[in-house]
Each structure stands twice: as C-alpha cells, then as structure tokens.
C-alpha cells in the first residue's frame, strides 16, 4: 500500500531553471522576486514581476505549483518592499508564499486570507509546539524543517504537528540552524537574515601566496588551498582553522560536503514527510534539470514500492558529480553526524 506521495519541490533562480525543473518532473518550483526579500539574493538571480507571471503561466500550464520565497527578515528600510512582494505574490496567483518573519505573516494572514502560507526553513521551527504556533496563529499549512533533526526526531515532530512537513533532500548543507546564523554578518556585515546573503561575493578575495591560494572573506582567512586541492567557495562554516592550542588546521565546523537523502527516501515517506526540497536557486538550469530528473526517478521508485526501494548506482553517481566537495552526507538526519 502506498500511503501517500512526497511532492518534489525544485529551485528556480530564473525562467530557464523554472522551465527545466518543470520539464524534468518537479511537482512544484520555488522562486523569488529580486532584492533583499529572499535568502538567495545574488546578482543576476531571481524574477521580476513580468518574468514571475511568465513562470507561473508555464508551470501552471503543465500542472506544476509555484511557491514564492520571501524568507529574509525585512528591516524597517525594506518593510514596504517586502509587504509589496507578498501582495504581488497574491496578485499573480502563486500557490503559496514561503515566509519566516512574524510581521510579514501577520500582513499576509490579514490581507490575503486565501494565500497559502508555508514556514521557511529560516523560521527555525524544530518542535511540534513551534510549528503549531505558526499554524494556530497564522494558518501556516506547511513548514520546511531546519537541517538539525535526526530522522527519528523528524518522525516524532510529524506525529504531533498539524503542519505538513517538507525537508531538504539534496544540495548544499547548512551546518547551522537556518535563521539562527550570523557568522556571515559578523565577518562581512551581510547575513541571510538581514540581506539574504551568506558570504557575499563582494567580500570574497582570492590571493595567490607562497603557501597556496588564500580565500579571504572581508580579510578573514577562511582557508588556504595547496596546488591541486579543489578550492570551494569560502563560507565560514566550511573553512579550516586552528582550534584551541592545536597546531593543525582542521575543518572545525564542517567539511565541504552536500546533503543527499537518496538512500533514506522510503524512511522519510514512512515518517510522514510530505515534500522533498532540492536546494539551489543559485544553481545553473543544467544543474537543476539533472538534480530534478534524478530525484524524480528516485521518488517515483519509492512511491511505486517503498519497501523494495534501492537507489540506482547511476542516480547516486550523478548526484555525487554535482556535489560540493564531491562528498555527501545525511547531515543531522543521521545521528552520528551530530
């Protein structure tokens, strides 16, 4: 018996990515308007109002849902832009908005009672009680869980909450509780919460030295790469540092790695997870297409026969080829990672 299906939610940083996600089997795509109202505020990324209308028409024409993420915490100077973005989402007919900020949720609930609300991963809700708070107060129907709970904890939360649960299935791995990380602003002034940016490109400098290639973030040395070492983008949580009096430089927080739940999709289904999200609105359309295609095949296999699911080696290979640091982890879902 197949109790339910898990929805495949794919990233769309622009129209080409949206089209390729839809064409490769996404059940839903998530996107953002340009500016500081979303957690992937990168140059050249995201939608203007016209592209949004086009994207919605394309997706809806093929039966795919569109969610709009407005998941930073707007400060007073961009409050107006943020509420206008919620209004635009409602006017254009998105299927849900993904919010984190309490003030914005109130705005949406009061002004657009028919607009479906999802709680962003940036909302940092990790317990049933927290999720129910958002449900009871704002009518939140779905929440994306921060990447901090073990699989059994995810199952426990689902048992006790009225909110549908979405989890990250593949992509970059936030080591910190999302919405609770100020490492980037401590070094650069910009954080996901304030500017929708982690380790903003304008603060990154690559410097060739005798010891190797230095990656600096606003002057802070995040890592030094010797010749032949693959040099990842310098985010603070994946740099190498000295700890205490230690002489060695170590990945004190986390190694460059990606999250992949390919192996445990049936467990997520049995736990009652309602949707699997692929990370990566900053990724190329080619990446989005490939990741969507692999996860589509995997989910179809799980739905067809959850008790006899074995991920095909070529799926794992394809995802591995797209991974940061070329290694993969279950992250917090696997207790030992913690």
């Amino acid at each position, binding site marked *: 018996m197949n109790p339910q299906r898990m929805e495949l939610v794919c990233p769309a940083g622009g129209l080409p990515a949206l089209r390729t996600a839809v064409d490769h089997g996404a059940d839903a795509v998530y996107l953002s308007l340009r500016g500081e109202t979303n957690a992937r505020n990168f140059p050249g990324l995201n939608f203007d109002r016209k592209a949004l209308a086009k994207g919605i028409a394309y997706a809806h024409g093929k039966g795919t849902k569109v969610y709009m993420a407005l998941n930073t*915490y*707007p*400060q*007073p*100077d961009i*409050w107006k832009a943020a509420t206008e973005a919620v209004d635009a989402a409602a006017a254009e007919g998105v299927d849900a908005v993904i919010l*984190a*900020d*309490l*003030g*914005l949720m*109130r*705005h949406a609930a009061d002004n657009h009672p028919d607009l479906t609300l999802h709680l962003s991963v940036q909302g*940092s*809700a*990790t*317990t*049933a*009680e*927290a*999720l129910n*708070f*958002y449900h*009871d107060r704002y009518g939140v129907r779905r929440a994306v869980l921060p990447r*901090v*709970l*073990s699989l059994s*904890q995810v199952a426990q939360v689902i048992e006790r909450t009225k909110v549908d649960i979405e989890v990250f299935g593949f992509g970059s791995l936030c*080591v*910190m*509780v999302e919405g*609770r*990380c*100020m*490492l980037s*602003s*401590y*070094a*650069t*002034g910009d*954080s996901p*919460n*304030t500017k929708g940016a982690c380790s903003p490109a304008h603060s990154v400098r690559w410097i060739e030295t005798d010891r190797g290639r230095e990656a600096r973030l606003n002057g*802070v*040395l*995040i*890592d030094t790469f010797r010749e032949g070492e693959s040099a990842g983008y310098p985010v*603070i949580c994946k740099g190498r*540092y*000295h*700890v*205490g009096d230690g002489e060695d*430089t170590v990945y*004190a*927080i986390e190694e460059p790695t990606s999250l992949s739940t390919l192996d445990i999709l049936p467990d997520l289904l049995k736990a009652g997870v309602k949707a699997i999200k692929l990370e990566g609105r900053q990724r190329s359309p080619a990446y989005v297409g490939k990741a969507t295609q692999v996860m589509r095949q995997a989910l179809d296999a799980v739905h067809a026969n959850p008790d006899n699911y074995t991920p095909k080696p070529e799926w794992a290979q394809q995802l591995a080829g797209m991974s940061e640091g070329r290694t993969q982890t279950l*992250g*917090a879902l696997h*207790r*030992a990672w*913690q």
Partner: protein
Amino acid sequence: MKLSLGPIQYYWPRERVMDFYKAVEAAPVDIVYLGETVCSKRRELRPADWLELADRLSAASKTVVMSTLALMEAESEQLALERLVNNGRYMIEANDATGLGLSTGKPFVAGPHINTYNAGTLKELADVGAVRWVMPVELSRDILAAMHAARPQGLETEVWGFGRLPLAFSARCFTARARNLPKDNCELACIDYPGGLSMSTQDGNDFLNINGIQLQSADPANLIHAVPELLDMGVEVLRISPEPEGTEQVIQAFRDCIEGTRSSAQAMEQIKGLYPRFSNGYWKGEAGMNWQESLSA
C-alpha cells in the same frame, strides 16, 4: 536605563555557578536571566536548583527571568520548557517559537534568539504577550532607533551591551568534534572550557569561539561607547553577558557610565585590560567583528 545580567552561556561546575550568583546578589544589576540556553545535557544545576537561585536573587531585590534553550530538538526538551513556563513565579525569556507558543497569553521576554527585525514583528510579539524584546545582536543603531520608536506601548527594549556574541547554533556539537567525541557520548566536555574553545584563522587571528553547539564571536561585544546614545534613545535595558573573568568590573563600569559618574572613555579604561580586543561593528551597521574606539555618528 536598567542593567541586566544575561544567562551564563558556558557550562560551569555547580560550585562556580553558585559562587558567581552569590556575588551577583550584591552587584549593581537590576535584572538577572537564569538558566541554560545552549545545551540540555548540561545539568550541573537541575531545574529546581535554578528556581532556588531565582528565589535567592529575588530576595536580593533582583528581577529574575528564566531563560530557555535557543535550539529545541528532543521532545524531552519541549516538556521541560512547558514545566518552566508554568513555574508560577518567574517570567521566561523565550528563545524560539516553542517558547512563543507555550507563552501565548502570558507575559514573557522575547529573547535575543527570536528573530525580531521590524516593527510588524514587535507588534506580533506584544500581541502574543511579550513585555520586552531583546534586539538580535546583528542589528544596527539605525535599525534599533527605528524599531524602538515604533514599538507598541508597554513593550520594553533590551540591547546586548557586553559579552561574546551568540552567532550560531547547530545540531552538531563543535566541542565534542574538537575532542573527537560523538555528541551522544560527549563526556560533557564543555565543562573543561569555562570560556569556550578558541577557533583562530590559519594566520593566527582569533575569530570565533566554540561553546558546544554554539559558535560565538571571539571578541566580546562592547557597547560602552554607545551608552550615551542608548540613554538618549530611551532604551530600557542594557545586557551584560557573563564571561568567566571580569564580569563584576564590567557591570560596575557600565553602571558608572549609565549613572554618569564616569564618562564612557573613563568606564572603558576600567575594562579594557580584560580582553585583548572587543567588537562593536554591528552597532554602526558594519561587520560585527569591527571595533571602533569612537562611535559618534
């Protein structure tokens, strides 16, 4: 402006905690936040011990608030929080939405880990029952001024004035990782680091500070030079976060500055030897790690 003492972020042996709060009874702070905010495995003090400490501080004329975990993962943590919310004597400081949900309709403090970035959110928190909000540490003077001016009536504003900044929380324990221990068998290693474990860059600069599942700034935030502006704005409460050394001097310096018996420059003289460096970059809307001796606009 009142002075508050935040919860101890580190894991100290029971005796040390008791001695610390014995001294606090006589210290010139008005509000004391008690309890564990980082990790539920830290049990040198049991809930009943914290409440007993609260009674003692309360008898010494301190207003006591019970602080709560910033990251809730296990169901047992949620149940413990429920008991704490219903302790019947002391208000809690909610540090995540679990706390908001459980406190709905009761007076509480929205702690520094509740993401409060605009006046719309302030109104929501007040509607839920908040009587005070603590500004997220990454916000600037200008944002504070705008939000403080727009806050609902009866909602007090508190600002992080001194101490290592709580910058991030994770499911992973970085102290256990540094000791090559699994989190589930961490041997409560945090107790060996009363001021956390330093994390420095490859070129030898102190950058962050490991404190269990929390990462802090290496350099304590220090808003002593902002005290005149905070007074002008009418901010109600300024928070000192306990550090293993020098907390009494820091409290006294801020108290003197608030009361005008010392200028901020004079107060700074009293504490500047305590740490190699401080940070105050967030105050001016810059990288939090920056430090400027002069904060004039």
